[in-house]
C-alpha cells in the first residue's frame, strides 16, 4: 500500500523502422496524478505498456521508487480503454481476483474489502452481475476498482474513459478524482482528451509526434474541487485552448 515515485528515463522504443518513443523522460512524484497528453499514434499507450511491464524498452529505464520495472506486477495496476474485467466472473469475483491471487488478504477480509470497494465505486448491489450486463461506465468503474483492490502504489490509466459518451465521461472524471482523493495513488493518465487531462491531472505532460518526447510540462492550477463547473472557468478555458493549440501544432 502507499504511493511510490514513478520515473522514466530516456525510454526509446521502435517497431521495425518506426521510431515510436524517442527518449521519454518523466517523473511522477508519490501521490501525484500526471496526465500525459499527445496526438494520436504518438506512442502514449506504448509508454504505458512499458511502465506496466507488458513491453520492454529498447533503451532507457522505468523505475518505481528507484527499482527498475521488469514484467507486470500487482504493484502497478493498469486499466485500458476496453477494461480488464474477466467476462466469466461475477463483478464480486472480478474485484476479489487480485487479492486472492496475491494472497494479500484472507477469505473473509477479501469479502469485506470487496464489499467496501463496491460501495465506494457505486457498484454495490451488482456483485453477482456479469460484466456484460453492466453499462459502459459501470464496467470502467469496476475495472478501476479491480485494480485498486490490490492497493497498488502506482496506477496506470490508458484512456480509461475513451469509449464512453461525453456525459458519462464527465461523471467518471468526478468519480475518479474523489476515489483517488480517498485512496492516494501515484497515477499516470494517458489521454488525448484535453478536458480529461485538465480535470484529473495535477501536472500535465505534452508529448510530441513520433518519435515522441515529453516537450512541455505544466502544473495544472485548479484545486481539488474540480468538476463540471470547472469547464466554464475562464482560466480552464484559456489553459485548454493553449494546450490544444500546442498539441495540434505538435
Amino acid at each position, binding site marked *: 500500500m502507499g504511493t511510490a515515485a514513478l520515473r522514466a528515463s530516456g525510454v526509446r522504443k521502435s517497431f521495425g523502422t518506426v521510431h515510436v518513443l524517442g527518449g521519454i523522460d518523466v517523473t511522477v512524484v508519490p501521490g501525484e496524478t500526471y496526465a500525459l497528453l499527445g496526438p494520436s499514434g504518438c506512442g502514449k499507450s506504448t509508454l504505458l505498456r512499458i511502465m*506496466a511491464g*507488458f513491453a520492454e524498452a529498447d533503451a532507457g529505464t522505468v523505475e518505481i521508487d528507484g527499482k527498475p520495472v521488469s514484467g507486470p506486477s500487482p504493484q*502497478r495496476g*493498469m486499466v485500458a480503454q476496453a477494461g480488464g474485467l*474477466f467476462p*466469466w466472473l461475477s463483478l464480486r469475483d472480478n474485484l476479489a481476483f487480485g487479492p486472492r491471487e496475491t494472497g494479500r488478504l484472507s477469505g473473509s477480509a477479501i469479502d469485506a474489502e470487496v464489499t467496501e470497494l463496491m460501495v465506494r465505486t457505486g457498484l454495490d448491489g451488482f456483485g453477482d452481475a456479469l460484466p456484460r450486463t453492466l453499462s459502459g461506465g459501470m464496467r470502467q468503474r469496476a475495472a478501476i476498482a479491480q485494480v485498486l483492490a490490490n492497493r497498488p502504489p502506482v496506477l496506470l490509466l490508458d484512456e480509461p474513459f475513451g469509449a464512453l459518451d461525453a456525459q458519462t465521461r464527465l461523471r467518471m472524471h468526478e468519480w475518479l478524482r474523489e476515489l483517488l482523493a480517498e485512496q492516494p495513488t501515484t497515477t499516470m493518465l494517458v489521454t488525448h482528451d484535453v478536458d480529461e487531462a485538465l480535470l484529473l491531472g495535477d501536472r500535465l505532460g505534452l508529448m510530441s509526434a513520433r518519435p515522441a518526447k515529453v516537450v512541455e510540462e505544466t502544473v495544472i492550477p485548479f484545486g481539488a474541487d474540480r468538476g463540471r463547473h470547472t469547464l466554464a472557468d475562464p482560466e480552464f478555458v484559456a489553459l485548454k485552448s493553449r494546450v490544444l493549440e500546442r498539441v495540434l501544432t505538435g
Partner: protein
Amino acid sequence: MVVPLALLGVWFAVSAGGAISISILPPPQRVATAAWEFFFGDSRVTLPGVVPFVGSGGLHIGASVVRCLVSFALAIVVGVIVGLGLGLSRWVSDLLDPLVNALRAVPLYAWLPIALVWFGIGETAARVLIFIGALWPVLIATADGVGRVPRGHIETARMLGTPGRRLWRRVYLPSALPEIVTGLRLSLTLAWMCVIVGELTGTTTGVGAMMNAARESGRIDQIVVGMLVFAVIGLIADLLLRMIARPFIRWSQT
C-alpha cells in the same frame, strides 16, 4: 415437431400403400411392436454369445451408455490436456500438431481392424474405438479456444498477481470453456455414433450389438428400433450436457 410428424405420416402412407417391401422398410406399427418387445417383452434365457432382443432394452442401452460414457470421459481428460498443451506451448504444438492432424484424418472404420488385432474381440476394442472417435473434437476445440484467449485477459491476470504456472487454470481454461463445450457436444455425439462401430467388434451387449444381430437375422424392424434408440438417447445426452454446461458458459451467451 412438425417435420418428424410429417415424416411419420409419409412413412405410414408409404407402408400402407405397399410401395416399399416390408423387408426393406417395415410399417411404423410393426416397429412400435418391436420396440415394445425390446423394452417390455418376456426376457428369456439365451445361449452364451447370442445377443438377446426381447425384454433386454435396459440391458443393451445401459451397456452402450456405460461404454460411451467411459470412453467419452477418457477422451475429455486426454483431449483437454493435449489441447491445452497444443494451445499453450509452441514446443508441444510443433511436436504434436502434425501427428494430431494426420491421425484425426483416419476414418474410424480404418481403426476397426487394427483395434481388433490389438485388443481382440469385445469390450476393450469397442471402448478404444469410441475413445478415438470422441477424442478429436474436444482436443481441437480446446487447442483453438486456448489459442484465441485475448491477450488482455492474460495481461490483466499477470498484473493482478497470477503467476505463469496458474494462468491455464485462472484464465485459459475458463476463457476457452465455450469453445471446449462446443467440442464436448460434438465429441459426445461422435462417441455415441461410434458406439455402433465399437459394438461391431463382437460385444454381446449394447444397442449396436443388438442391431448387428438383427441385421444377421434380417429383422429390419429391430434395426429401426435400434436407430430410434440411438437418436433419442443422443438427443437426451446433448440436452443434458448443455444443461450441465450452461452455468459455466452463461457469460458467453447473448
